[in-house]
Protein backbone atom coordinates (compact mmCIF):
# COMPACT_ATOMS: atom_id res chain seq x y z
CA UNK A 1 0.00 0.00 0.00
CA UNK A 2 1.24 3.41 -0.79
CA UNK A 3 0.12 6.92 -1.35
CA UNK A 4 -3.06 7.89 -3.09
CA UNK A 5 -2.59 9.19 -6.59
CA UNK A 6 -5.04 11.09 -8.75
CA UNK A 7 -5.71 9.11 -11.88
CA UNK A 8 -8.19 8.48 -14.67
CA UNK A 9 -10.08 5.18 -14.43
CA UNK A 10 -8.63 4.00 -17.75
CA UNK A 11 -5.08 4.48 -16.48
CA UNK A 12 -5.79 3.15 -13.00
CA UNK A 13 -7.15 -0.16 -14.28
CA UNK A 14 -4.13 -0.54 -16.57
CA UNK A 15 -1.69 0.16 -13.73
CA UNK A 16 -3.55 -2.25 -11.45
CA UNK A 17 -3.50 -4.96 -14.13
CA UNK A 18 0.28 -4.65 -14.46
CA UNK A 19 0.66 -4.83 -10.68
CA UNK A 20 -1.52 -7.96 -10.69
CA UNK A 21 0.95 -9.72 -12.95
CA UNK A 22 -0.48 -8.97 -16.37
CA UNK A 23 2.47 -8.91 -18.78
CA UNK A 24 0.58 -9.32 -22.03
CA UNK A 25 -1.86 -6.81 -23.44
CA UNK A 26 -3.34 -6.76 -26.95
CA UNK A 27 -5.80 -4.10 -28.07
CA UNK A 28 -7.03 -1.74 -30.75
CA UNK A 29 -7.61 1.99 -30.24
CA UNK A 30 -11.14 3.22 -29.57
CA UNK A 31 -12.62 6.14 -27.66
CA UNK A 32 -13.33 6.45 -24.70
CA UNK A 33 -10.78 3.78 -23.64
CA UNK A 34 -7.73 5.25 -25.43
CA UNK A 35 -5.91 6.21 -22.22
CA UNK A 36 -5.87 2.54 -21.29
CA UNK A 37 -4.13 1.34 -24.47
CA UNK A 38 -1.77 4.35 -24.32
CA UNK A 39 -0.87 3.64 -20.69
CA UNK A 40 -0.11 0.03 -21.57
CA UNK A 41 2.01 1.15 -24.55
CA UNK A 42 4.06 3.32 -22.19
CA UNK A 43 4.33 0.98 -19.20
CA UNK A 44 4.54 -2.58 -20.55
CA UNK A 45 8.08 -2.19 -21.96
CA UNK A 46 9.22 -0.95 -18.52
CA UNK A 47 8.20 -4.25 -16.90
CA UNK A 48 9.46 -6.40 -19.81
CA UNK A 49 5.86 -7.04 -20.77
CA UNK A 50 4.23 -7.26 -24.17
CA UNK A 51 2.19 -4.42 -25.55
CA UNK A 52 0.87 -5.03 -29.04
CA UNK A 53 -1.49 -2.80 -30.99
CA UNK A 54 -3.39 -5.32 -33.06
CA UNK A 55 -4.69 -4.81 -36.60
CA UNK A 56 -8.27 -5.22 -35.37
CA UNK A 57 -10.39 -5.99 -32.33
CA UNK A 58 -10.85 -9.45 -33.78
CA UNK A 59 -7.10 -10.03 -33.96
CA UNK A 60 -6.58 -8.58 -30.47
CA UNK A 61 -9.00 -11.00 -28.79
CA UNK A 62 -7.44 -13.90 -30.70
CA UNK A 63 -3.97 -12.85 -29.54
CA UNK A 64 -5.45 -12.97 -26.05
CA UNK A 65 -6.67 -16.51 -26.85
CA UNK A 66 -3.15 -17.55 -27.86
CA UNK A 67 -1.45 -16.01 -24.85
CA UNK A 68 -4.10 -17.36 -22.45
CA UNK A 69 -3.51 -20.78 -23.96
CA UNK A 70 0.03 -20.48 -22.64
CA UNK A 71 -1.41 -19.96 -19.14
CA UNK A 72 -0.30 -16.33 -18.81
CA UNK A 73 -2.22 -13.40 -17.37
CA UNK A 74 -3.43 -11.47 -20.40
CA UNK A 75 -5.80 -8.60 -20.95
CA UNK A 76 -7.53 -6.65 -23.69
CA UNK A 77 -9.79 -3.62 -23.55
CA UNK A 78 -12.15 -1.79 -25.81
CA UNK A 79 -15.36 0.16 -25.93
CA UNK A 80 -18.81 -1.00 -27.03
CA UNK A 81 -18.46 -1.29 -30.86
CA UNK A 82 -15.10 -2.98 -30.35
CA UNK A 83 -16.55 -5.45 -27.88
CA UNK A 84 -19.08 -6.50 -30.52
CA UNK A 85 -16.14 -7.36 -32.77
CA UNK A 86 -14.56 -9.34 -29.96
CA UNK A 87 -17.75 -11.35 -29.41
CA UNK A 88 -16.50 -14.21 -31.59
CA UNK A 89 -13.32 -14.46 -29.53
CA UNK A 90 -15.21 -14.27 -26.23
CA UNK A 91 -17.25 -17.32 -27.21
CA UNK A 92 -14.08 -19.22 -28.17
CA UNK A 93 -12.32 -18.22 -24.92
CA UNK A 94 -15.31 -19.47 -22.95
CA UNK A 95 -15.55 -22.66 -25.00
CA UNK A 96 -11.86 -23.43 -24.63
CA UNK A 97 -11.99 -22.48 -20.93
CA UNK A 98 -9.27 -19.87 -21.14
CA UNK A 99 -8.55 -17.33 -18.40
CA UNK A 100 -8.55 -13.76 -19.69
CA UNK A 101 -9.62 -10.28 -18.65
CA UNK A 102 -11.59 -7.99 -20.97
CA UNK A 103 -12.35 -4.37 -20.11
CA UNK A 104 -15.35 -2.67 -21.74
CA UNK A 105 -15.40 1.11 -21.30
CA UNK A 106 -18.96 1.45 -22.54
CA UNK A 107 -20.17 4.24 -24.79
CA UNK A 108 -23.50 5.12 -26.35
CA UNK A 109 -24.92 2.80 -29.01
CA UNK A 110 -26.25 1.10 -31.05
CA UNK A 111 -23.92 1.09 -34.05
CA UNK A 112 -21.23 3.74 -33.81
CA UNK A 113 -23.45 5.58 -31.31
CA UNK A 114 -21.39 8.24 -29.60
CA UNK A 115 -18.45 8.41 -27.21
CA UNK A 116 -20.28 9.37 -24.03
CA UNK A 117 -20.88 7.05 -21.05
CA UNK A 118 -23.65 4.45 -21.31
CA UNK A 119 -24.71 1.08 -19.93
CA UNK A 120 -26.25 -0.28 -23.09
CA UNK A 121 -23.99 -3.34 -23.24
CA UNK A 122 -25.48 -4.96 -20.13
CA UNK A 123 -27.36 -7.59 -22.13
CA UNK A 124 -24.32 -8.29 -24.31
CA UNK A 125 -22.03 -8.69 -21.30
CA UNK A 126 -24.29 -10.70 -19.01
CA UNK A 127 -26.46 -12.72 -21.39
CA UNK A 128 -24.00 -13.72 -24.09
CA UNK A 129 -22.93 -11.49 -26.95
CA UNK A 130 -21.15 -14.31 -28.72
CA UNK A 131 -22.72 -17.58 -29.85
CA UNK A 132 -23.47 -20.63 -27.77
CA UNK A 133 -24.21 -21.37 -24.12
CA UNK A 134 -21.59 -19.56 -22.13
CA UNK A 135 -21.12 -17.00 -19.39
CA UNK A 136 -18.59 -14.35 -18.58
CA UNK A 137 -18.02 -13.24 -15.02
CA UNK A 138 -18.94 -9.56 -15.25
CA UNK A 139 -17.75 -6.98 -12.71
CA UNK A 140 -19.26 -3.48 -12.69
CA UNK A 141 -17.17 -0.80 -10.97
CA UNK A 142 -18.63 2.41 -9.64
CA UNK A 143 -15.49 4.40 -8.78
CA UNK A 144 -11.94 4.71 -10.06
CA UNK A 145 -10.67 2.87 -6.96
CA UNK A 146 -13.06 0.00 -7.55
CA UNK A 147 -12.24 -0.07 -11.26
CA UNK A 148 -8.56 -0.51 -10.33
CA UNK A 149 -9.25 -3.09 -7.59
CA UNK A 150 -11.28 -5.13 -10.03
CA UNK A 151 -8.23 -5.74 -12.20
CA UNK A 152 -6.67 -8.01 -9.59
CA UNK A 153 -10.05 -9.53 -8.63
CA UNK A 154 -10.68 -10.26 -12.31
CA UNK A 155 -7.34 -12.05 -12.75
CA UNK A 156 -7.85 -14.09 -9.58
CA UNK A 157 -11.37 -15.11 -10.63
CA UNK A 158 -10.41 -16.00 -14.19
CA UNK A 159 -7.42 -18.02 -12.99
CA UNK A 160 -9.60 -19.84 -10.47
CA UNK A 161 -12.51 -20.78 -12.74
CA UNK A 162 -10.99 -20.57 -16.23
CA UNK A 163 -13.97 -18.44 -17.24
CA UNK A 164 -13.19 -15.11 -18.95
CA UNK A 165 -13.91 -12.04 -16.82
CA UNK A 166 -15.22 -8.77 -18.17
CA UNK A 167 -14.95 -5.50 -16.31
CA UNK A 168 -18.03 -3.58 -17.45
CA UNK A 169 -17.10 0.05 -16.98
CA UNK A 170 -18.19 3.13 -18.90
CA UNK A 171 -16.86 6.32 -20.42
CA UNK A 172 -17.43 8.29 -17.25
CA UNK A 173 -15.39 5.98 -15.02
CA UNK A 174 -12.76 5.70 -17.72
CA UNK A 175 -12.31 9.44 -18.14
CA UNK A 176 -12.93 10.63 -14.58
CA UNK A 177 -10.01 11.30 -12.22
CA UNK A 178 -10.23 10.17 -8.59
CA UNK A 179 -7.71 9.36 -5.90
CA UNK A 180 -6.68 5.74 -6.07
CA UNK A 181 -4.44 3.52 -3.96
CA UNK A 182 -2.69 0.55 -5.54
CA UNK A 183 -1.58 -2.83 -4.27
CA UNK A 184 2.11 -3.78 -4.46
CA UNK A 185 3.56 -5.13 -7.71
CA UNK A 186 3.65 -8.89 -7.97
CA UNK A 187 7.25 -10.02 -8.34
CA UNK A 188 8.51 -11.88 -11.41
CA UNK A 189 8.78 -15.01 -9.25
CA UNK A 190 5.17 -14.67 -8.13
CA UNK A 191 4.03 -14.18 -11.72
CA UNK A 192 6.01 -17.26 -12.80
CA UNK A 193 4.30 -19.25 -10.04
CA UNK A 194 0.84 -18.02 -11.12
CA UNK A 195 1.48 -19.41 -14.59
CA UNK A 196 2.41 -22.83 -13.23
CA UNK A 197 -1.05 -23.38 -11.75
CA UNK A 198 -2.20 -23.94 -15.35
CA UNK A 199 0.47 -26.45 -16.38
CA UNK A 200 -1.97 -29.37 -16.24
CA UNK A 201 -3.87 -28.00 -19.23
CA UNK A 202 -2.00 -25.09 -20.88
CA UNK A 203 0.56 -25.19 -23.67
CA UNK A 204 4.11 -25.11 -22.34
CA UNK A 205 7.49 -26.69 -23.16
CA UNK A 206 7.52 -30.46 -23.21
CA UNK A 207 9.68 -33.39 -22.14
CA UNK A 208 10.43 -36.79 -23.66
CA UNK A 209 9.15 -39.98 -22.10
CA UNK A 210 6.81 -40.17 -19.11
CA UNK A 211 5.44 -36.77 -18.19
CA UNK A 212 5.16 -35.82 -21.84
CA UNK A 213 1.94 -33.92 -22.45
CA UNK A 214 -0.30 -33.24 -25.42
CA UNK A 215 -2.49 -30.28 -24.49
CA UNK A 216 -5.17 -29.05 -26.86
CA UNK A 217 -6.58 -25.54 -26.55
CA UNK A 218 -9.85 -26.14 -28.24
CA UNK A 219 -13.60 -25.50 -28.27
CA UNK A 220 -14.45 -28.05 -30.98
CA UNK A 221 -16.22 -31.27 -29.97
CA UNK A 222 -17.59 -32.80 -33.15
CA UNK A 223 -19.22 -35.70 -31.26
CA UNK A 224 -22.57 -34.42 -29.85
CA UNK A 225 -22.25 -36.64 -26.78
CA UNK A 226 -18.85 -35.13 -26.00
CA UNK A 227 -20.06 -31.59 -26.65
CA UNK A 228 -23.02 -32.14 -24.36
CA UNK A 229 -20.63 -33.32 -21.65
CA UNK A 230 -18.43 -30.28 -22.20
CA UNK A 231 -21.31 -27.78 -22.03
CA UNK A 232 -22.80 -29.48 -18.96
CA UNK A 233 -19.39 -29.22 -17.34
CA UNK A 234 -19.36 -25.50 -18.13
CA UNK A 235 -22.82 -25.27 -16.54
CA UNK A 236 -21.48 -26.90 -13.39
CA UNK A 237 -18.72 -24.30 -13.17
CA UNK A 238 -21.23 -21.50 -13.78
CA UNK A 239 -23.45 -22.83 -10.99
CA UNK A 240 -20.48 -22.87 -8.62
CA UNK A 241 -19.69 -19.27 -9.54
CA UNK A 242 -23.34 -18.31 -8.96
CA UNK A 243 -23.19 -19.93 -5.53
CA UNK A 244 -19.88 -18.42 -4.42
CA UNK A 245 -18.99 -15.23 -6.23
CA UNK A 246 -21.98 -12.88 -6.05
CA UNK A 247 -20.87 -9.46 -4.84
CA UNK A 248 -22.97 -6.43 -4.13
CA UNK A 249 -23.06 -3.27 -2.07
CA UNK A 250 -26.04 -2.76 0.24
CA UNK A 251 -26.39 0.96 0.87
CA UNK A 252 -28.80 1.89 3.67
CA UNK A 253 -30.56 -1.48 3.36
CA UNK A 254 -32.49 -2.09 6.62
CA UNK A 255 -35.68 -3.75 7.94
CA UNK A 256 -37.53 -0.44 7.85
CA UNK A 257 -36.84 0.47 4.21
CA UNK A 258 -39.93 1.70 2.39
CA UNK A 259 -38.36 1.72 -1.02
CA UNK A 260 -35.38 -0.01 -2.59
CA UNK A 261 -33.42 1.22 -5.59
CA UNK A 262 -31.26 -1.00 -7.76
CA UNK A 263 -28.50 0.47 -9.93
CA UNK A 264 -24.99 -0.51 -11.00
CA UNK A 265 -21.82 1.34 -11.98
CA UNK A 266 -22.02 5.03 -12.75
CA UNK A 267 -25.82 5.09 -12.37
CA UNK A 268 -25.48 3.84 -8.77
CA UNK A 269 -23.25 6.79 -7.84
CA UNK A 270 -25.95 9.22 -8.89
CA UNK A 271 -28.71 7.25 -7.16
CA UNK A 272 -26.67 7.32 -3.93
CA UNK A 273 -26.56 11.13 -3.95
CA UNK A 274 -30.30 11.26 -4.64
CA UNK A 275 -31.32 8.90 -1.82
CA UNK A 276 -28.94 10.61 0.61
CA UNK A 277 -30.95 13.80 0.06
CA UNK A 278 -34.31 12.00 0.32
CA UNK A 279 -33.29 10.13 3.46
CA UNK A 280 -32.17 13.42 5.01
CA UNK A 281 -35.74 14.57 4.41
CA UNK A 282 -36.99 11.67 6.55
CA UNK A 283 -37.55 8.87 4.04
CA UNK A 284 -35.99 5.44 4.33
CA UNK A 285 -34.75 4.36 0.93
CA UNK A 286 -32.08 1.75 0.35
CA UNK A 287 -29.88 0.96 -2.64
CA UNK A 288 -28.65 -2.36 -3.87
CA UNK A 289 -25.67 -2.03 -6.16
CA UNK A 290 -24.73 -5.27 -7.88
CA UNK A 291 -20.93 -5.45 -8.15
CA UNK A 292 -21.05 -8.71 -10.04
CA UNK A 293 -23.73 -8.30 -12.70
CA UNK A 294 -23.10 -11.91 -13.61
CA UNK A 295 -23.46 -13.80 -11.33
CA UNK A 296 -26.42 -11.59 -10.45
CA UNK A 297 -27.57 -11.01 -6.83
CA UNK A 298 -31.13 -12.32 -7.37
CA UNK A 299 -31.38 -13.77 -3.85
CA UNK A 300 -30.05 -10.66 -2.15
CA UNK A 301 -32.57 -8.47 -3.98
CA UNK A 302 -35.38 -10.92 -3.18
CA UNK A 303 -34.38 -10.81 0.51
CA UNK A 304 -34.41 -7.00 0.55
CA UNK A 305 -38.05 -6.95 -0.61
CA UNK A 306 -39.69 -7.40 2.80
CA UNK A 307 -43.28 -6.52 3.76
CA UNK A 308 -42.61 -2.83 4.35
CA UNK A 309 -41.29 -2.27 0.81
CA UNK A 310 -43.83 -0.44 -1.37
CA UNK A 311 -41.92 -0.22 -4.60
CA UNK A 312 -38.59 -0.92 -6.29
CA UNK A 313 -36.84 1.59 -8.54
CA UNK A 314 -34.29 0.66 -11.20
CA UNK A 315 -32.01 3.30 -12.70
CA UNK A 316 -29.80 2.57 -15.69
CA UNK A 317 -28.05 4.38 -18.52
CA UNK A 318 -29.99 2.32 -21.06
CA UNK A 319 -33.61 1.48 -21.92
CA UNK A 320 -34.01 -1.06 -19.12
CA UNK A 321 -31.69 -4.04 -19.41
CA UNK A 322 -30.76 -4.97 -15.82
CA UNK A 323 -34.41 -4.13 -15.15
CA UNK A 324 -35.31 -7.61 -16.41
CA UNK A 325 -33.04 -9.24 -13.81
CA UNK A 326 -34.50 -7.08 -11.05
CA UNK A 327 -38.01 -8.13 -12.12
CA UNK A 328 -36.94 -11.77 -11.98
CA UNK A 329 -35.68 -11.21 -8.44
CA UNK A 330 -38.73 -9.22 -7.30
CA UNK A 331 -41.00 -11.79 -8.95
CA UNK A 332 -44.10 -9.59 -8.92
CA UNK A 333 -44.07 -8.97 -5.16
CA UNK A 334 -44.12 -5.18 -5.58
CA UNK A 335 -44.25 -2.82 -8.57
CA UNK A 336 -40.91 -2.09 -10.24
CA UNK A 337 -40.43 1.41 -11.65
CA UNK A 338 -37.73 2.26 -14.16
CA UNK A 339 -35.89 5.35 -15.30
CA UNK A 340 -33.25 5.22 -17.99
CA UNK A 341 -31.18 7.68 -19.96
CA UNK A 342 -29.70 6.91 -23.36
CA UNK A 343 -27.58 8.60 -25.97
CA UNK A 344 -24.64 8.91 -23.61
CA UNK A 345 -26.56 11.31 -21.38
CA UNK A 346 -26.27 10.79 -17.63
CA UNK A 347 -29.23 11.58 -15.35
CA UNK A 348 -28.76 14.05 -12.50
CA UNK A 349 -29.53 13.34 -8.81
CA UNK A 350 -32.43 15.80 -9.18
CA UNK A 351 -33.97 13.73 -11.96
CA UNK A 352 -33.61 10.59 -9.85
CA UNK A 353 -35.20 12.32 -6.86
CA UNK A 354 -38.06 13.53 -9.03
CA UNK A 355 -38.73 10.02 -10.29
CA UNK A 356 -38.79 8.56 -6.77
CA UNK A 357 -40.80 11.45 -5.29
CA UNK A 358 -43.60 10.84 -7.77
CA UNK A 359 -44.35 7.65 -5.81
CA UNK A 360 -43.57 8.70 -2.22
Amino acid at each position, binding site marked *: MGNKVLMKGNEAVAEAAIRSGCRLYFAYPITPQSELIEYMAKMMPKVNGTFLQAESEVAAIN*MVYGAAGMGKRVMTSSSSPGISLKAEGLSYLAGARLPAVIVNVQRGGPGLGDIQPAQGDYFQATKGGGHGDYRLIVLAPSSVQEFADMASDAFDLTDKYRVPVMILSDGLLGQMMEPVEFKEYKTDAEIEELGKQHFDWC*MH*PNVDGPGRHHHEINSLEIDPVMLEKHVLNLEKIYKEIEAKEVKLEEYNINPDNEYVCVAFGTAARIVKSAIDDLNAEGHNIGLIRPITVWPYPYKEIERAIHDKINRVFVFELNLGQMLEDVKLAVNGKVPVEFMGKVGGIVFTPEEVKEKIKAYL
Partner: protein
Amino acid sequence: MAIIAERPKSLRDISFTYCPGCTHGIAHRLIAEAVDELGLRNSMAGVAPVGCSVFAYKFFDFDMAEAAHGRAPAVATGMKRARPDMNIFTYQGDGDLAAIGTAEIVHAANRGEHISVFFVNNAIYGMTGGQMAPTTLPGMKTTTSPYGRDADDIGYPIRVSELLNTLEAPYYIERVTLLSVPEIIKAKKAVLKALTYNKEGKGFTFIEFVSTCPTNWGVDPVDALKWAKDNMVPYFKPGLFRDKGEQK
Protein backbone atom coordinates in the same frame (compact mmCIF):
# COMPACT_ATOMS: atom_id res chain seq x y z
CA MET B 1 15.72 -56.08 -38.92
CA ALA B 2 16.34 -52.48 -39.74
CA ILE B 3 13.36 -50.14 -39.81
CA ILE B 4 13.42 -48.23 -43.06
CA ALA B 5 10.27 -46.18 -42.67
CA GLU B 6 8.30 -45.23 -39.58
CA ARG B 7 5.95 -42.58 -38.31
CA PRO B 8 7.73 -39.40 -37.26
CA LYS B 9 7.72 -38.97 -33.49
CA SER B 10 5.90 -35.66 -33.95
CA LEU B 11 2.84 -37.43 -35.37
CA ARG B 12 0.57 -39.24 -32.93
CA ASP B 13 -0.55 -42.82 -33.50
CA ILE B 14 -4.08 -41.98 -34.63
CA SER B 15 -5.70 -42.09 -38.06
CA PHE B 16 -5.94 -38.99 -40.22
CA THR B 17 -9.45 -37.84 -41.07
CA TYR B 18 -8.47 -36.90 -44.63
CA CYS B 19 -9.96 -38.34 -47.81
CA PRO B 20 -7.96 -40.93 -49.75
CA GLY B 21 -5.49 -39.21 -52.07
CA CYS B 22 -5.57 -35.91 -50.18
CA THR B 23 -2.20 -34.17 -49.84
CA HIS B 24 -2.79 -32.89 -46.27
CA GLY B 25 -1.24 -36.11 -44.96
CA ILE B 26 1.94 -35.43 -46.90
CA ALA B 27 2.14 -31.85 -45.63
CA HIS B 28 1.61 -33.04 -42.04
CA ARG B 29 4.33 -35.64 -42.43
CA LEU B 30 6.84 -33.16 -43.86
CA ILE B 31 6.29 -30.79 -40.93
CA ALA B 32 6.52 -33.63 -38.38
CA GLU B 33 9.73 -34.98 -39.93
CA ALA B 34 11.31 -31.54 -39.93
CA VAL B 35 10.33 -30.92 -36.29
CA ASP B 36 11.92 -34.27 -35.36
CA GLU B 37 15.07 -33.64 -37.37
CA LEU B 38 15.57 -30.19 -35.87
CA GLY B 39 14.99 -31.47 -32.33
CA LEU B 40 12.10 -29.07 -31.82
CA ARG B 41 9.49 -31.52 -30.55
CA ASN B 42 9.69 -30.30 -26.96
CA SER B 43 9.47 -26.60 -27.76
CA MET B 44 6.95 -26.79 -30.58
CA ALA B 45 3.30 -25.72 -30.50
CA GLY B 46 1.03 -25.35 -33.50
CA VAL B 47 -2.23 -23.71 -34.43
CA ALA B 48 -4.87 -25.60 -36.41
CA PRO B 49 -7.36 -23.73 -38.60
CA VAL B 50 -10.98 -24.19 -39.55
CA GLY B 51 -11.29 -26.36 -42.64
CA CYS B 52 -10.31 -29.92 -43.51
CA SER B 53 -7.27 -29.66 -41.26
CA VAL B 54 -9.41 -28.52 -38.32
CA PHE B 55 -8.42 -31.74 -36.52
CA ALA B 56 -4.69 -31.13 -36.98
CA TYR B 57 -4.58 -30.42 -33.24
CA LYS B 58 -5.13 -34.13 -32.67
CA PHE B 59 -2.46 -35.33 -35.10
CA PHE B 60 0.73 -33.62 -33.96
CA ASP B 61 2.46 -34.90 -30.87
CA PHE B 62 2.99 -31.58 -29.17
CA ASP B 63 0.70 -28.89 -27.79
CA MET B 64 -1.79 -27.45 -30.25
CA ALA B 65 -4.38 -24.69 -30.28
CA GLU B 66 -7.51 -24.70 -32.41
CA ALA B 67 -8.21 -21.22 -33.76
CA ALA B 68 -11.40 -19.60 -34.99
CA HIS B 69 -11.72 -19.38 -38.79
CA GLY B 70 -8.85 -17.30 -40.17
CA ARG B 71 -7.49 -16.22 -36.80
CA ALA B 72 -4.57 -18.63 -36.55
CA PRO B 73 -1.86 -15.98 -37.17
CA ALA B 74 -3.31 -13.81 -34.38
CA VAL B 75 -3.51 -16.80 -32.02
CA ALA B 76 0.08 -17.74 -32.94
CA THR B 77 1.13 -14.14 -32.28
CA GLY B 78 -0.32 -14.33 -28.77
CA MET B 79 1.34 -17.70 -28.19
CA LYS B 80 4.78 -16.59 -29.36
CA ARG B 81 4.63 -13.29 -27.45
CA ALA B 82 3.60 -15.20 -24.31
CA ARG B 83 6.31 -17.87 -24.70
CA PRO B 84 9.21 -16.64 -26.84
CA ASP B 85 11.08 -19.80 -25.77
CA MET B 86 8.68 -21.93 -27.80
CA ASN B 87 8.51 -22.43 -31.57
CA ILE B 88 5.13 -21.75 -33.13
CA PHE B 89 3.56 -22.55 -36.49
CA THR B 90 0.15 -22.24 -38.04
CA TYR B 91 -1.32 -24.65 -40.55
CA GLN B 92 -4.02 -23.07 -42.72
CA GLY B 93 -6.03 -23.70 -45.85
CA ASP B 94 -6.88 -21.21 -48.56
CA GLY B 95 -10.37 -20.28 -47.35
CA ASP B 96 -9.06 -19.79 -43.83
CA LEU B 97 -5.94 -17.84 -44.73
CA ALA B 98 -6.78 -16.02 -47.96
CA ALA B 99 -10.45 -15.10 -47.35
CA ILE B 100 -11.72 -14.76 -43.80
CA GLY B 101 -8.21 -14.48 -42.32
CA THR B 102 -6.69 -12.03 -44.82
CA ALA B 103 -6.12 -9.29 -42.25
CA GLU B 104 -4.54 -11.62 -39.70
CA ILE B 105 -2.04 -13.16 -42.15
CA VAL B 106 -1.05 -9.84 -43.74
CA HIS B 107 -0.44 -8.16 -40.39
CA ALA B 108 1.35 -11.11 -38.77
CA ALA B 109 3.64 -11.13 -41.81
CA ASN B 110 3.99 -7.37 -41.73
CA ARG B 111 5.04 -7.44 -38.07
CA GLY B 112 7.54 -10.16 -38.91
CA GLU B 113 6.11 -12.36 -36.17
CA HIS B 114 8.55 -15.11 -35.33
CA ILE B 115 6.24 -17.88 -36.48
CA SER B 116 6.07 -20.26 -39.45
CA VAL B 117 2.94 -20.42 -41.56
CA PHE B 118 2.14 -23.49 -43.65
CA PHE B 119 -0.44 -22.60 -46.25
CA VAL B 120 -2.25 -25.40 -48.08
CA ASN B 121 -3.67 -24.12 -51.36
CA ASN B 122 -6.02 -26.52 -53.16
CA ALA B 123 -8.20 -23.87 -54.80
CA ILE B 124 -11.37 -24.92 -52.97
CA TYR B 125 -13.16 -25.10 -49.59
CA GLY B 126 -12.88 -28.79 -48.74
CA MET B 127 -14.51 -29.26 -45.34
CA THR B 128 -17.76 -27.48 -46.18
CA GLY B 129 -18.15 -29.39 -49.42
CA GLY B 130 -16.36 -27.76 -52.32
CA GLN B 131 -17.29 -24.08 -52.39
CA MET B 132 -15.34 -21.40 -54.24
CA ALA B 133 -12.15 -20.25 -52.52
CA PRO B 134 -10.19 -17.03 -53.02
CA THR B 135 -7.71 -19.25 -54.87
CA THR B 136 -10.28 -20.96 -57.14
CA LEU B 137 -9.09 -20.64 -60.74
CA PRO B 138 -10.99 -18.59 -63.36
CA GLY B 139 -13.60 -20.76 -65.01
CA MET B 140 -13.31 -23.44 -62.32
CA LYS B 141 -16.65 -24.93 -61.29
CA THR B 142 -17.42 -25.28 -57.59
CA THR B 143 -20.68 -25.60 -55.65
CA THR B 144 -20.86 -21.80 -55.27
CA SER B 145 -19.51 -21.05 -58.76
CA PRO B 146 -21.62 -23.62 -60.62
CA TYR B 147 -21.09 -21.84 -63.97
CA GLY B 148 -17.36 -21.45 -63.41
CA ARG B 149 -15.55 -18.65 -61.57
CA ASP B 150 -16.24 -15.44 -63.43
CA ALA B 151 -13.23 -13.25 -62.74
CA ASP B 152 -15.06 -10.13 -64.00
CA ASP B 153 -17.71 -10.67 -61.35
CA ILE B 154 -15.86 -12.10 -58.36
CA GLY B 155 -12.24 -11.27 -59.09
CA TYR B 156 -9.14 -13.30 -59.79
CA PRO B 157 -7.53 -15.88 -57.53
CA ILE B 158 -5.25 -14.33 -54.93
CA ARG B 159 -1.56 -15.22 -55.11
CA VAL B 160 -0.79 -15.04 -51.42
CA SER B 161 2.97 -15.66 -51.58
CA GLU B 162 3.36 -12.81 -54.09
CA LEU B 163 1.11 -10.57 -51.97
CA LEU B 164 3.13 -11.16 -48.80
CA ASN B 165 6.34 -10.67 -50.75
CA THR B 166 5.47 -6.99 -51.11
CA LEU B 167 6.02 -6.56 -47.36
CA GLU B 168 9.37 -5.66 -45.80
CA ALA B 169 9.38 -7.88 -42.74
CA PRO B 170 8.95 -11.51 -43.86
CA TYR B 171 12.16 -13.51 -43.67
CA TYR B 172 11.42 -16.40 -45.96
CA ILE B 173 8.60 -17.05 -48.47
CA GLU B 174 8.49 -20.02 -50.82
CA ARG B 175 5.83 -21.80 -52.87
CA VAL B 176 6.27 -25.53 -53.39
CA THR B 177 3.98 -28.26 -54.66
CA LEU B 178 3.02 -31.69 -53.34
CA LEU B 179 2.30 -33.05 -56.82
CA SER B 180 5.19 -35.47 -57.42
CA VAL B 181 7.95 -37.18 -55.47
CA PRO B 182 10.71 -34.78 -56.61
CA GLU B 183 8.43 -31.84 -55.77
CA ILE B 184 7.70 -33.31 -52.34
CA ILE B 185 11.43 -33.69 -51.67
CA LYS B 186 11.82 -30.01 -52.59
CA ALA B 187 8.89 -29.15 -50.31
CA LYS B 188 10.58 -30.99 -47.44
CA LYS B 189 13.69 -28.83 -47.90
CA ALA B 190 11.54 -25.71 -47.76
CA VAL B 191 9.78 -26.86 -44.57
CA LEU B 192 13.14 -27.66 -42.99
CA LYS B 193 14.44 -24.23 -43.92
CA ALA B 194 11.36 -22.47 -42.53
CA LEU B 195 11.58 -24.33 -39.23
CA THR B 196 15.35 -23.83 -39.06
CA TYR B 197 14.81 -20.08 -39.33
CA ASN B 198 12.03 -20.42 -36.77
CA LYS B 199 14.42 -22.22 -34.41
CA GLU B 200 17.06 -19.53 -34.95
CA GLY B 201 14.50 -16.79 -34.24
CA LYS B 202 15.00 -15.14 -37.62
CA GLY B 203 11.44 -13.97 -38.25
CA PHE B 204 8.33 -14.71 -40.25
CA THR B 205 8.52 -17.73 -42.57
CA PHE B 206 5.83 -18.78 -45.03
CA ILE B 207 5.47 -21.93 -47.12
CA GLU B 208 2.67 -22.32 -49.64
CA PHE B 209 1.89 -25.88 -50.72
CA VAL B 210 0.09 -26.25 -54.06
CA SER B 211 -2.14 -29.19 -53.20
CA THR B 212 -5.10 -31.19 -54.44
CA CYS B 213 -8.65 -31.98 -53.41
CA PRO B 214 -9.70 -35.06 -55.40
CA THR B 215 -13.02 -35.36 -53.56
CA ASN B 216 -14.32 -31.88 -54.24
CA TRP B 217 -12.69 -31.56 -57.63
CA GLY B 218 -14.54 -34.79 -58.50
CA VAL B 219 -11.51 -36.59 -59.94
CA ASP B 220 -9.40 -39.51 -58.78
CA PRO B 221 -6.19 -38.76 -56.87
CA VAL B 222 -3.85 -39.37 -59.81
CA ASP B 223 -5.91 -37.19 -62.14
CA ALA B 224 -6.03 -34.55 -59.39
CA LEU B 225 -2.23 -34.38 -59.38
CA LYS B 226 -2.24 -33.97 -63.15
CA TRP B 227 -5.04 -31.37 -63.03
CA ALA B 228 -3.15 -29.33 -60.47
CA LYS B 229 0.04 -29.54 -62.50
CA ASP B 230 -1.74 -28.44 -65.69
CA ASN B 231 -4.00 -25.80 -64.17
CA MET B 232 -2.80 -24.57 -60.78
CA VAL B 233 0.95 -24.58 -61.31
CA PRO B 234 0.83 -22.15 -64.28
CA TYR B 235 -1.13 -19.67 -62.11
CA PHE B 236 0.53 -20.38 -58.75
CA LYS B 237 4.11 -20.74 -59.96
CA PRO B 238 6.38 -22.55 -57.52
CA GLY B 239 9.47 -20.69 -56.51
CA LEU B 240 11.47 -18.90 -53.88
CA PHE B 241 10.15 -15.38 -53.33
CA ARG B 242 12.22 -14.32 -50.36
CA ASP B 243 15.09 -15.75 -48.36
CA LYS B 244 16.83 -13.18 -46.21
CA GLY B 245 19.14 -15.93 -44.96
CA GLU B 246 20.55 -16.32 -48.48
CA GLN B 247 20.93 -12.64 -49.26
CA LYS B 248 24.29 -12.13 -47.60
